[in-house]
């Protein structure tokens, strides 16, 4: 079965970089540019893992994770953040961990750290995207 990663970020460059890295590692990549779009994609396609940014228009990463876990509680999410003026990426990603995300990834991403998080998460979580009835 294809291993499919849904990348959720409003930054088109991030999509290009993550897509290039993940596809070269044998993953199929789907794209969404905010949380709402991510939920639409997940409603129509089966994914192995969601790679999601925190700051996005329309629906931010925290709300997106809550909504994903309400519908697909076993679908792993790796949260990305570059932080902001008030919170470092580490603080923000700790918050995300408390909300149940599988792993946090500080921006900017690179191949080594991205693949390490993705592979660790997929190995640990045995991901299944199943709708809860």
């Amino acid at each position, binding site marked *: 079965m294809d291993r499919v990663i849904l990348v959720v970020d*409003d*930054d088109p*460059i991030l999509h290009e970089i993550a897509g290039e*890295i993940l596809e070269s590692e044998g993953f199929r990549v789907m794209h969404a540019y905010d949380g709402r779009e991510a939920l639409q994609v997940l409603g129509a396609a089966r994914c192995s893992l969601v790679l999601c940014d925190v700051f996005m228009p329309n629906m931010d990463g925290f709300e997106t994770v809550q909504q994903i876990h309400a519908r697909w509680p076993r679908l792993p999410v790796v949260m990305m953040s*570059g932080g902001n003026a*008030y919170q470092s990426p580490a603080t923000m990603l700790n918050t995300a961990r408390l909300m149940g995300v599988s792993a946090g990834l500080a921006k900017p991403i690179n*191949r080594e750290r991205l693949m390490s998080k993705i592979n660790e998460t997929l190995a640990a979580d045995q991901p299944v995207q199943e709708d809860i009835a």
Partner: protein
Amino acid sequence: MSEVLMEEPPILDRQRFDELRASCAPPVFNALVETFTDNLPLLLHQLRACASRADADGVRSIAHQYRGFAGSFGAKRLEAIASRIQNTEPLDPSAILEAAAAIEVVAPDTLEAITRAMQPDP
């Protein structure tokens, strides 16, 4: 927006830039750079338009885009300015003009630094 940075970050963090280059196949990296360099002036145009109508939400949104682009490429000074704009409260008309002016100064330097970094080592 009026605070002075004690130590300005570099225009381009070559380590981050080269790390990104190493993460991608050369044609993809070249396309990414082209996307970045094409988008910098477009965003500047949009920023000027938002600044001229004191559109704080628009300026903040453009700063967010600048920050994402700049962060990926290691354009540290542009990223720092964009981050400050994004997090300035309130973003009143004078802060908007100051933000636009800061980006106007740094964007061309960033483009130049990236162009230099793309050239082969002598």
